[in-house]
């Protein structure tokens, strides 16, 4: 390419106490190019885009935009220079309308009436249906993302940064998004695209830069590179694919019979008549877009929110009214999605956290008195077995990285030899090698005869480990299907198609 790059980064370095987030990073993006930024958690992708967006100042190195020096002191300056960013965790305000949200992200926002007209115009041009007066808190994840994208588009960006945009979308919504992005790219807007999902990058991106531990370790043309090769460049070593050995399924251990539960709060989802049987040694994968009843289903199964009699049977006994401790004693264990504050108490040590869920099954308490040395041994065995990187069981849960804490949280339950194990988002925010280890642990657990329910939004993960697959949509569970041979389109339909699209037209 002979044209001047739109954006060129040279030798960017940014250090935080104890860690170099970016070390001498250079890359170039041409106008209209879709450029992927790849790397594991902690590789420095977020820091890099925050520097481009003016949220973080580099310690050294330079940026050039269209050949001119570019050093945004704050997001405002970056936006003025034509950089737009769609955040991984949406930077939206739930209690406000779509138009108000968009106005907040603009430098010279017009009056709300005029802005609403602009929003409607842009949303039609790019095929992103969205009504300006709706309250953002009522929107689906896909619609919320459209709010962010339209906010960026209204400022006519030359470069659009997207941080993990598809992690909350159904396959159909991903297609709609990609159509929009391709259109933008054809119009000359460059896109810097961050994602873990390598197949998406292969279908969308023109080029890719791979970061590892803050350094650029390679570049490739995603179309000509296999996903596996890219993954290994990211990790820096060969990846272990989880292996599964076929084994016979046992008796039915858990039955859900028309399980209903009201929504826990205004933003929750009611469970509407869920029926499914689970056999020993089987993994039931439950897909679906977040907010369709995943948390509520886990709470109903773990006993956090007991359900009415006759809805939940364990080996034929009605356990609907039992709380978590009694269910744990029976061997029904659960690991919720949110690690900090739900699965683990952030300010307590790993030993204390091990005590909290392990007491009933591991005999860590005797007549109300706690056996701390046994709890420490148990925590240590979790750390050893699951390769949790930490100074020791006395470390606070908060001090562990997301992936390490996740390994601890899952390992803590796995080592309690569950009869039924329910887990929500087992590898959310966990890097590829830790995710592979966790999936292998779940497969091994099934082989020993445990029945598992794995709730996840990562379809590749569910395909890799599930025996049967079903989807949650609006609090209802689809009919389970054999996971073998199921296609992405079929899964998308089970998940409710392009979720939220119909609503947006109203």
């Amino acid at each position, binding site marked *: 390419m002979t044209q001047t790059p739109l954006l060129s980064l040279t030798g960017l370095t940014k250090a935080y106490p104890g860690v170099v987030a970016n070390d001498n990073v250079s890359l170039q993006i041409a106008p209209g190019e879709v450029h992927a930024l790849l790397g594991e958690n902690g590789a420095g992708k977020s820091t890099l885009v925050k520097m481009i967006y003016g949220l973080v100042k580099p310690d050294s190195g330079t940026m050039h935009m269209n050949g001119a020096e570019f050093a945004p002191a704050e997001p405002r300056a970056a*936006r003025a220079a034509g950089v737009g960013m769609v955040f991984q965790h*949406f930077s939206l305000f739930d209690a*406000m309308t779509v138009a108000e949200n968009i*106005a*907040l992200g603009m430098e010279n*926002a017009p009056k709300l009436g005029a802005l609403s007209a602009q929003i409607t115009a842009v949303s039609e041009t790019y095929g992103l249906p969205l009504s300006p007066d709706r309250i953002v808190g009522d929107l689906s994840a896909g619609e919320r993302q459209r709010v962010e994208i339209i906010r960026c588009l209204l400022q006519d960006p030359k470069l659009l940064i997207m941080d993990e945009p598809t992690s909350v979308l159904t396959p159909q919504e991903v297609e709609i998004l990609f159509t929009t992005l391709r259109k933008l790219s054809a119009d000359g807007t460059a896109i810097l695209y961050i994602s873990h999902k390598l197949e998406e990058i292969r279908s969308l991106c023109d080029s890719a830069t791979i970061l590892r531990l803050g350094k650029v370790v390679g570049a490739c043309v995603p179309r000509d590179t296999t996903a596996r090769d890219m993954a290994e460049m990211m990790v820096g070593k060969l990846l272990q694919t989880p292996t599964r050995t076929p084994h016979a399924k046992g008796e039915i251990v858990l039955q859900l019979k028309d399980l209903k539960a009201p929504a826990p709060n205004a933003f929750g989802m009611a469970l509407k008549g869920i029926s499914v049987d689970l056999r020993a040694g089987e993994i039931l994968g439950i897909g679906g877009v977040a907010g369709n009843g995943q948390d509520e289903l886990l709470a109903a199964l773990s006993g956090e929110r007991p359900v009415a009699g006759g809805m939940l049977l364990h080996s034929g006994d009605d356990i609907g009214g039992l709380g978590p401790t009694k269910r744990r004693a029976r061997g029904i264990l659960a690991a919720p999605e949110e690690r900090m504050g739900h699965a683990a108490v952030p300010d307590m040590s790993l030993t204390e956290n091990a005590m909290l869920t392990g007491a009933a099954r591991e005999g860590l308490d005797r007549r109300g008195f706690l056996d701390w040395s046994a709890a420490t041994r148990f925590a240590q065995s979790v750390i050893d077995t699951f390769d949790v990187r930490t100074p020791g069981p006395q470390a606070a849960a908060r001090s562990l990285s997301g992936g390490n804490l996740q390994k601890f949280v899952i390992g803590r339950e796995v080592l309690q030899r569950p009869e039924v194990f329910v887990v929500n988002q087992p590898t959310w925010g966990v890097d590829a090698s830790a995710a592979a280890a966790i999936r292998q642990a779940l497969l091994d657990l099934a082989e020993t005869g445990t029945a598992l329910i794995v709730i996840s939004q990562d379809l590749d993960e569910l395909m890799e480990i599930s025996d049967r697959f079903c989807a949650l949509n609006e609090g209802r569970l689809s009919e389970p299907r054999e996971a073998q041979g199921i296609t992405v389109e079929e899964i998308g339909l089970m998940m409710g198609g392009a979720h939220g699209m119909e609503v947006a037209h109203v």
Partner: protein
Amino acid sequence: MMDLSAINPLLFIAGFFVAATPLIFAAIGELVVERTGVLNLGVEGMMIMGAICGFATAVETGSPLLGFAAAALGGAALSLLFAFLTQVMLANQVASGLALTLFGLGFSALLGQSYVGIKPPRLGDIDFGPLADIPVVGPILLSHDIIVYLGIALVVAVWATLKFTRAGLVLRAVGENHDAAHALGFKVKRIRTLAIMFGGACAGVGGAYISLIRVPQWTEGMTAGVGWIALALVVFASWRPFRVLLGAYLFGGLVQLQLNLQGVGVAIPVEYLAMSPYVITIVVLVVLSRDSNRAPGSLGRIFHASH
């Protein structure tokens, strides 16, 4: 003996405004603070600081209006301490607010030692000319000092600012989700500090209204819990300015009513009468707020700009 005819209905209703004004100021200030996501429990302390600063200044200069200006400064100065603790030192807002109230009560007592038993200069009512002679409306609505009208104007201004201006939108955004507001490049701490100072100034004026006009004299701890009522009012008014106004008038009216009932000797123990405004106001506002009790998303959470 009870003689309800001893109550002059016009003076009685006009008294609503006087009784409600300290509450209006304190609550509308706290409403703005809470809409930016900060919970300042120091309202009572800032009010009493305003009460003594206003009283002392009015006595020394002979000008009640200068007294109100000093009250606003005094309240804002004390609120800066809270802003320093919570926005710079990232201290817990609840504990800092309680400390502020205790500090304000003690410090004001120290400052006020030489002012006990003095009469402050009076602030005259606004002269509406012939309008004030309109029957009923004149004595009720057009017979007050400027601060009463300023309070109402302030509520309208806060409502309009929050609803129609960009500054109001940004302010609400900071209170709704401070991380998102920060990501968009808004100065969360600066906006919050300014709001806290505004709240302090309003509370100060409210306090001075008690010491300069409503009572009018200086005694220790004379705000007597109005700051706490203001805090409750903001919550039960669902963080909406006009509901604050409504609640303040309800409370003011009930205070006025119970004082009058005490005056005419109703056969109910004084303690019941004295607590009735608090109970009834809260009950009414709880009922009102059942449908729309939506607190600002970041209320009371400490903001720390990571990376």
